[in-house]
């Protein structure tokens, strides 16, 4: 047992925090909320330069060769800075999916570009119901002479307006098997319709109408993509947890600071136990979610069975996310109900993250199934 971060990980944390505090202030977050693409391409380029986009991709494919713990350390910093970018969907989720399912020419064709931020990819999985379970997919990939044609409507596709490629999850013909098809975004058979979302988060409906996919753009074996998909989703789910933990920790620090300086009844409100105990409860929830996330990540790294641990981590991350939202607004009170106060930036991203990569209901149900219930 060794629950400490390595020196390298501590260094990554420090440098990421310094960089993001300087380069991603909440004024930038606010500007990007009203931009067309929802992120800063200038900052994206600098993130690529820092090696963040390929942090946990293999060195031979242009990555940094880091592990999932490194990725979590960065995710916590990204979460606390509210950094808007396609990092999670493109570099991490699609990167891991290609890494797990792709053949050698797909690895060398896509991963270096993902690591350098030259290509943006997005996973097209959920459909109109918003159900995250891959078993609910109804889009179809039908065999054609020289490949496949994909048809279906995907509803919650992050950063779709910026994507160069989609990895579309589709049924393989009439079978239950899932096919992972890499589809060019600028095809006339693909229509992207942005969705109005919380904090103007960039997500869109993407419709594929007989979109042709050459055989070499099928990831792995057609109809057998389910397992790699699940692995990549689990990996990305833990990164999402890390981001939520980092944000909750930041909210905790903010309300503790505020409680020390805000004077009411002639004394700092932080001297009141009613305030102290809310902060203490949030600290407990942060520790629980963080420890569960790191434990699941260690199990994943060591190749131990960890699907249940991952679902547990996301359920706990959702919990701390909700708690940090109400604790933040409760302690800041009136001022945090205004748009000009930053707390609403945090609570909006909390809500997005709680719904992303499986909400609490999805993960609680998954835990129950894995418990044999």
């Amino acid at each position: 047992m060794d629950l400490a971060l390595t020196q390298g990980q501590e260094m990554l944390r420090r440098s990421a925090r310094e960089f993001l505090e300087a380069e991603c202030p909440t004024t930038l977050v606010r500007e990007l909320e009203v931009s067309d693409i929802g992120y800063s391409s200038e900052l994206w380029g600098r993130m690529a330069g820092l090696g963040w986009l390929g942090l946990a991709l293999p060195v031979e494919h242009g990555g940094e060769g880091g592990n999932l713990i490194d990725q979590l350390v960065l995710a916590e910093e990204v979460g606390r800075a509210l950094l808007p970018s396609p990092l999670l969907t493109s570099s991490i989720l699609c990167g891991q999916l290609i890494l797990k399912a792709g053949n050698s020419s797909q690895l060398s064709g896509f991963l270096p570009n993902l690591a350098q931020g030259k290509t943006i990819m997005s996973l097209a999985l959920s459909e109109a119901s918003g159900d995250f379970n891959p078993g609910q997919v109804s889009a179809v990939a039908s065999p054609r002479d020289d490949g496949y044609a994909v048809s279906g409507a995907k509803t919650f596709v992050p950063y779709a307006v910026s994507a160069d490629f989609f990895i579309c999850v589709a049924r393989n013909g009439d079978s239950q098997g899932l096919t992972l098809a890499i589809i060019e975004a600028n095809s006339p058979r693909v229509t992207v319709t942005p969705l109005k979302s919380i904090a103007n988060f960039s997500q869109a409906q993407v419709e594929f109408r007989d979109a042709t996919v050459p055989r070499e753009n099928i990831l792995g074996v057609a109809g057998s993509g389910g397992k790699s998909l699940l692995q990549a989703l689990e990996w990305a789910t833990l990164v999402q947890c890390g981001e939520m933990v980092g944000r909750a920790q930041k909210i905790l620090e903010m309300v503790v600071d505020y409680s020390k300086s805000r004077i009411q009844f002639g004394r700092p409100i932080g001297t009141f136990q009613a305030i102290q105990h809310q902060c203490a409860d949030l600290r407990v929830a942060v520790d629980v979610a963080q420890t569960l996330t790191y434990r699941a990540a260690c199990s994943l790294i060591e190749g131990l069975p960890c699907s249940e641990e991952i679902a547990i981590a996301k359920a706990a991350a959702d919990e701390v996310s909700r708690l940090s939202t109400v604790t933040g607004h409760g302690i800041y009170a009136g001022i945090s109900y205004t748009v000009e106060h930053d707390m609403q930036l945090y609570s909006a991203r909390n809500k997005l993250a709680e719904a992303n990569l499986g909400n609490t209901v999805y993960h609680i149900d998954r835990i129950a199934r894995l418990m044999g219930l």
Partner: protein
Amino acid sequence: MRFQFTQEQQRFREEVSAFLRQEMSPEYETVYGTFSEEKYWFGRALARKLADRGWLTIGWPREYGGGGKTFLEQSILDEQIGYQRVQRVGITGLNFAGPAIIKFGTEEQKKRYLPPIARGDVEYCQGFTEPNAGSDLASLQMRAERDGDDYVLNGSKMFTSYYAHADYIYLLARTDPDAPKHRGISLFIVEMNAPGISTRPLPYINGEVAAQTFFDSVRIPRSSLVGEENQGWYHAMTTLDYERVGLERYARVRRTFDDFVNFCRDAASNGKSLGHSPLVRHKLAELKVGMEGWGLLCWKVAWMQSQGEVPNAEASIAFLYGTQQRLRFAQAAMEILGQRGTLTPESELAPIQGAIEGVSRESLHLHGAGTLEIHRNIIAQRGLGLPR
């Protein structure tokens, strides 16, 4: 980062587990609320066997009869004892008095007190809380007045668990009534059969019997003082974190949780297993999140101690969260069981040996090592730096 034990620790865990499985039989399992003299003395005999194997004090330094391993090994033992429902004996000596003597005792005290603890031959009880000193423990009033080479004790202590079997009481008493309250307290080890000590039994709702212990001009030699005079509060607090690790407590609850999940999965209710009910599934899955979180918080504290760190806020975090999870579990399980949950462990019809009814009583123990509010104060003030 690594959550796995080393191979050696894993082997130790398996050995302890196999040994306890072989030694234990169902009639000696201490399911919540089932205490008896037989179980107590079975526990004492088992403690001696653990000592023979060098396991009882595996985390103590070798020179004091320990195994020279870390807090993690000691915690592995605790976890197995809890999971296998062994009646716990000797914990005040093993966890508080012993470590305090190792840290603050004289050579003579070490020679006198430590070997019997390490052999499993002795029982201690604790005398901290008083009728008027609970959460505000430092306001304790029991006096220890110097009289020549002796101290004379007057006052009373509350919630003296294990009093009936105890050879010694490990207590705090006021040696300087004029000093600020934290700075006038000293730590003593007193023989329970000293003239002037009497007890009034105080049965608990979980079936255990503790006592109120009275001290009427109890004369004790100066050599009973542990550490420095008037530094007792600080001495005691540095050894209290152990109580808050709580791996044994966790593992005991976890065993009942695991049994209950199996029960729900298998037990037919209206022709269907309870595990098919969406509400039951949902409750159990939510509880699983809490159980896993609690276990990890305990291991984190144990790991910090093994690194020589003092887990102050972390220990309170683990304790607070654990108490909440035990309560949540007991409440949910009672809701799920309905009328079957009203059967006590003595009833043959009680599901899983009546452990749910038992844990629902024990879950009202919301005050161990401080009330939940005291733990929140510690987390807020020492962990987060909020002002007093």
